[in-house]
Each structure stands twice: as C-alpha cells, then as structure tokens.
C-alpha cells in the first residue's frame, strides 16, 4: 500500500467522486461544530474555573434568541446535507437504461456472477471501463451484501427478491469486493475481485479465448455460452436428455438400436445432431457445425465426460429440486 497510514481507497467509479465530496463536506461542517464547541468548553473551563470553595456561578436562566439561533442554524445545515445525500442516492437507486446487466447470486459463502452472454464466474467480476453496469442481485439462502469500496457502492442481496445496483467504472484495475452483510461462518471470506478492463480486452475475455486452461471448466462455460444448458437440463426435465452419466453408457436410439456414447458420438451429436436421435426425443437440436472450433468441441467433450459421475435423473423426473433449504 502507498502510505503507512492509508485512508480513502481509490476512486474507481462515477459515484466515488460524489460520495467523497459529500463526505468531505460533512467532515468540514461537523469538524467546524466539534472544534467550536470543544474550544468553547476549554475556554470556559479555564476562564470560569472555581476560585474559592464557596463561590457560585451567575444566575442565568437562558436566552431565547440564542436557543432559536442554535436550533435554526444546525437545522439548515442538516437539511442541506440531507438533500445532497438524497440526490446521490436517488441517482444510485434509479439505474440508467443502457446498462450492461450482470446477474449476481450470493450463497453461503461464494458469489456466482453471470455475464449477459451467459459466461459465468465465481468470486470474480470482469467489466469494461466506461460502461454503465447494472448488477441484478439474488440470494440462494440468507442476506448478503455486494460491496466494492473502490466504487463506493453496496447493496444487500436479499432472498426472495431482486435488488439492483449500478455504477460506471472509470478506471481500469483490480478492486476488492466484499460481502458486507453478516451471513454466517465464512462471511469474512465471501469476497473477491472486480477486474475493470479496456472494452476491447473485455470483449476478448468475454468470447473466452483467453484465460481458462482447464478443459472441463472451459467446457462448462461453453455449455452455457452456446445455450446447450437451455435444453439439456441436468435434472432431465428439459427438451433434451440430461447429459449426466451419458458418457460411456449405452444410448437407446429412436430406431431401436443402441450406441455407446463415446467421444465420436458426442462429436457427431454436436455437429450432426440428426444423425442419431435418442429414443423419446424430438430431432430439434440445431447443428453447431461451423460455430464451434475443434478446441471447443474438445472442451465440451471433456465437460460431458466430467458429468459421468453426476447422478442420473429418472427420465422426465419431477420438478427442479429446490436449491433452498438448510445446507
């Protein structure tokens, strides 16, 4: 850190300047009163100290002019501070319309964040500098709070409802974010980093070229990004079969034959889905020929393989299991 006794963190959002300006204004006015009153007390304590054992003070009841004065002046100042504060807050609560919307879900004790294109992150948020960003906040269990000190903004994440917060990052860099509403054992480690990037960098990051080397997690991201997830629900209730446990299993096809789901079969299913139709399903899967690179197919396959150990739902199994409830 810069100085041995640091104070304000960096000002990295559109709100930071305003919030700090108001803070300094209140600091100045309150300091004025505090210093004034303190000096008066010290002065009086010296000037009017008791000089003989039996001395008494003056016989004064009060002074109405003074009373009115020191009622009105603080009132006016207080209302001024209120108005300034309210202006910032209203601006903060009412988001502009052209925002980059990011879904944020808090759960004990991690954050899941999702970019508009479906790319998901855990305890990390990547955003472009200069864009208005709106976070849509939901919770899976208890109340959390998304807080970025460098942006000077926070908002509670309340189960049972959505809250929103918005800001515009104005400086690239990496900033801490915290959970700032007490949520249980690991409340203090439920944080992460916001990375503010140049727009071009952000676009590149978003398309997923950079970063991930782990094929399974890369595959998982692609699985969302290409919207496979919208049909292949893991619990088997979607339009397409659940892919849990598929790899290596015998698949019954619509024509009565069976086939072993190996790498080739997966690859074929992605590129020519209608070649082999799974029994009980409609041939509605679009082809991804030309949309996916070889590398991505590899990643997807790796991900599907990783689902081998996931529980296989009974076909058409009931409603989505409730993710809520006691941990």
């Amino acid at each position, binding site marked *: 850190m810069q100085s041995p006794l640091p104070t304000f963190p960096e000002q990295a959002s559109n709100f930071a300047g305003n919030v700090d300006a108001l803070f300094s204004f209140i600091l100045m006015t309150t300091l004025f009163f505090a210093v004034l009153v303190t000096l008066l007390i010290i002065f*009086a304590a010296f000037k009017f100290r008791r000089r003989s054992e039996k001395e008494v003070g003056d016989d004064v009841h009060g002074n109405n002019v003074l*009373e009115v004065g020191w*009622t009105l002046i603080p009132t006016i100042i207080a209302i001024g501070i*209120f108005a300034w504060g*309210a202006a910032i807050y209203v601006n903060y609560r009412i988001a502009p319309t052209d925002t980059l919307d990011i879904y944020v879900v808090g759960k004990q004790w991690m954050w899941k964040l999702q970019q508009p294109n479906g790319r998901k992150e855990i305890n990390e948020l990547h955003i472009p500098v200069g864009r208005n960003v709106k976070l849509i906040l939901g919770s899976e269990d208890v109340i959390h709070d998304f807080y970025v000190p460098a942006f000077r903004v926070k908002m509670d994440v309340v189960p049972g409802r959505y809250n929103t917060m918005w800001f515009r990052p104005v400086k690239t860099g990496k900033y801490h974010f915290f959970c700032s509403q007490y949520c249980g054992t690991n*409340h203090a480690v439920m944080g992460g980093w916001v990375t503010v990037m140049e727009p071009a960098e952000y676009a590149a990051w978003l398309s997923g070229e950079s970063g991930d080397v782990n094929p399974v997690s890369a595959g998982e991201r692609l699985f969302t990004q290409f919207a496979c997830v919208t049909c292949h629900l893991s619990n088997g209730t979607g339009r397409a079969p659940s892919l849990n446990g598929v790899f290596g299993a015998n698949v019954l096809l619509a024509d009565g034959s069976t086939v072993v789901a190996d790498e080739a079969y997966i690859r074929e299913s992605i590129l020519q889905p209608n070649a082999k139709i799974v029994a009980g399903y409609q041939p509605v899967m679009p082809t991804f020929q030309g949309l996916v690179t070889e590398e991505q197919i590899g990643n997807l396959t790796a991900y599907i393989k990783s689902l081998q150990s996931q529980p296989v739902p009974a076909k058409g199994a009931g409603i989505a299991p409730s993710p809520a409830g006691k941990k």
Partner: protein
Amino acid sequence: MRTEATGPAPEMPEKHYLNATYGIRSWLLTTDHKRIALLYLASVTFFFFIGGFFAMMIRLHLLTPNGYLLTPDLYNRMFTMHGVTMVFFFLIPSIPAILGNFLIPLMVGAKDLAFPKINLLSWYIYVVGGLFTLWSMVNGGLDTGWTFYTPFSTLYSNSAVAPAVVGVFITGFSSILTGLNFLVTVHTMRAPGMTWFRLPLFVWAHYATSIVMILGTPVIAITLGLAAMERVFGLGFFNPAMGGDPILFQHLFWFYSHPAVYIMILPAMGVISELIPTFARKRLFGYHFVAAASLAIAVIGFVVWTHHMFLTGQSTYAAVAFSFLTFIVAIPSAIKTFNWTATLFGGSISFDTPMLYAFGFLGLFMIGGLTGLFLGALGVDINIHDTYFVVAHFHYIMVGGAVMGYLGGLHFWWPKITGRMYPEWLARIAAFILFIGFNFTFFPQFILGIMGMPRRYHTYPPEFQIYNVMSTAGASILAIGYLLPMVYLTWAAFYGKVAGDNPWPATGLEWKTQSPPLTENFEVTPVVTWEAYDFHNRPDLGLDVPAGKGSPGVVAPAHGDD
C-alpha cells in the same frame, strides 16, 4: 442541614436503608427501590464484564489479519454475544434501572416508586432473561449478530438462537415494567411543590426514556417472539421460501432498536444535565429547551428507524423520507449540546471526577453524534454502511457517551448511595485512562470504515492491519480503565471517607436527606419551594451568594400541579 466544609466531620447516620434489615432474604425480597437499584448494580456489572471479556477476545483476535486466536464460528459468536450482552443486559438497564431506580423517588420526593413489587418483579424478570441468555452462551453460543437478521437466525444458524431470543424477549418485559413504574411515579407521586418544571432534568430524561421503553419494547418482544416461533414451529412471516419477507423483520426490529439507542443515551444525557449545573454551580442554561429536547428525541426517534435499512432494497421514497427525519432527530441533541456548553459560561467550575466524565461525555458524544450525520446522509451511507465506520460511530456514543455518563453518575451519587466518598485522585486518573484508551480503541475504526473494512469480519486484507493493531492496543488500556473504578468504588463503599448529606453541594431533593437515605427516603415529606439548579435561593447550601445577585425568592404554591 450540614455542609461539610464548615461543620464537624460528618458521621454515618445511625439508621439507613442499608442497615434497616439484614440477611439474604431481606435483599432478595426487598421492595425498597434503593435496594433493588443495588441488585441491578450487581447484575448489570456482572454482564458488563462478560460483555467486556467478549470485546477483548474480539480485539485480540483482530490483531493480525488472519487471527489465530479463534475459529471463524467462535469469532462470530464473540461479537454477537458481545453485542447482545452489552446492549440488552448492560446498557439498556444500566442508568435507568440503577441510578433511575435509586434516584427518581428521591428526586420527586416520594417514599418509593408507584409499584414497588412490580419493581422487584422487573429485576427478577431481568435475571431470568439473563440466565436464559447465559445458558445459550454456554450451550452452543449465538452467532446471529445482535440484530438477529432473518432468515439467517431462523433457518440457517446452527447456534442456540431460541434460548437467546427467549432471554432477550423476557428481559424486554423488565424494561417495560421499569418504564411503566417511572411514568406513573412521575405523574402521581411528586411531593408538594414539585411542579413539572421544577423536576430535575434527570427525571425529565427518564420520563422520555420511559415513553420509549413503553412504546418500543413490546414491538421487539413480538418480533423476537415471531422469530422464535419461526425457528421452532415453522411460522413463516420472515421466511422467503414461504413467501415471507426478511425485510419485514428488519422493519420490526429497528422500530424498537433505533428508539432503543435513545433508551441508552437519554438517561446519560439526564446525568450530564445534573453534573454540569452542580459542578458549575449554575442553573442549567435553557432548562425548558433541554426538557423539551428530551421529549422530542423520544418522539421523533420513533420515525427514523429505516436508516439502518437504506441498502436492503426498501423503497427509494421511503429511504429519502427517513433520511430527512434522521437529520431532524439530530437537532434536539444539538440543542442539548449547546445548552450544556452555555451553562459553563459564567459558572464556577470545579474539576471533580464526575465533571471530568461530563467533559468526556460532551466531546465523545459529539463525535459519535456527528458521525451519525455521515451515516444518515444517504449518499455516504451507500459507502460506509456496515463498515467499521458504523462500529466506531456507535461505540463513540454508547461507550464514549452513555458509559461515560453512567460512570460520571455513579461517582456523583456514590456518596449518596453508600454514604462514603470514593478516592478522588485515583478516580481522576482512571477517568483520564479511560478517555485516552477509548479514543485509541475507536478512532482508528473510523478510518478502517472509510477504507472499506466491513464489520463482523474475522479475517481481513493486510492493508487494514495497522489500524487494527492500534485499536487492540487501545482496548487493553480501556480494560484497565474499567477495572480501576470497579475496584476502588467497591473499596470506598466500605472504607471510604464518610461523605455527609450533601458533599458537593448540589441542589436536588435527593441531597436533602441523609446519606445513605432512610428506607422511607425522607423523615417528613419535603415541600419544594425552589426551581431546579437554583443555587442562589438556597441558603441551606451554605454558599456565598453575592449580594443582589440572587433572583427574588420563589414562593411555591401549596401543592403541585399535575
């Protein structure tokens, strides 16, 4: 009437409330408000040291960023139990149930409170509630934060929430009964001549406090009751899985708990309003304004509660309205501060220990209160809500303000309570240590808050460490500061110099009876013919009133108004 400087050295009176009867039973079954006050003193002090122990654990753990002293779960239990004990079992009952209980009947010239048995009952309720909470502390502890936010407290916490909540629920009724007793006493038990506007401001402050206790406490009771039933029987008002609303809990909680902060500060303000005139030997400047400010705080204090919820997603309009009201409620405190300061001018100021505490109160309460304005300002609260800035704010008011006021009051009335003086120089040193230690502990926390360190963190990024070290160092000084008075006040109660009826001298009715007082308080019911803090028309105090400086004698009507 004796004044100590002239007459022979005072002696202990032969008969007083302490030696009227003997034995454990005579204490546990007493209906004497003065003895009940001492029962409260013992139990409240006990809880203060328990709470203080938790505080020390917190501070020691936070010495290093990773804190090796406690596990995360244990840390969470520490700050929760610290908050719960300090708020519900120490600060809320401290001044009202100890000093208020002891002094209000004396100050209004009554033989006892209106309902002495209910007064005793309230102490037993307090003890039962305390036992429940202690029991929960040793049986799994409590890790919800003192605010008990749902659904964490009702559905997720693995700690002993139910007994703790029941404990706080029960204790609430002790507070209700105390408030009820005070209100009725002030209305119907005043001595002849003790009109409303001759009441000491300590009584006014307690009248206002009682209003808050009466109207607010039942709401926390039902709220915690519902939360307990939700945890135990599955009621659903706060359970989002059933369509209930966790924010409703916060509304109900803060409807009480914001006004409750005024339960904690108003009595301390009452103490200060006694100390300053006494040690400046001068009327309190603007008596009527200070009395009215107490009532205004009590009333307006009820309509600002959502300032604790600005960022929960309450309606933007509501937040703006409540922020406005928050600034309005600060004004009566400002009025009081200015009137206290003005009282000093033209006074004859001495620096006895109680007055040192009064000075400490003025400075620290002011800082605490003024930082409340930062939090009340919506635009700034977005940043510092739930950071250490809040922690510093409320410790400045509650420890720097209320506890200083409490200790000041304890020293001031100790001679009345025990009949004996505390050691003056030791007491001054202790007050000084407390002041230094306090600022060392809590000032760095403001900066931590500005830097963005959230509260209730058992571990923190290393850039916050330097201020945490300062804070922990300060807390160690503070601990010594608290131990000293505890030791010497106890000592003084038995071996201190005999004080006499009115050692300071002060003007209140409580000083017109012997120290310690009789069980019936006064030998004959006093008739009041003077205004509060009037040093000029009180020849019985034996002070040098400059000729012509006194106001013409005030003649009292035969009996008081209502």
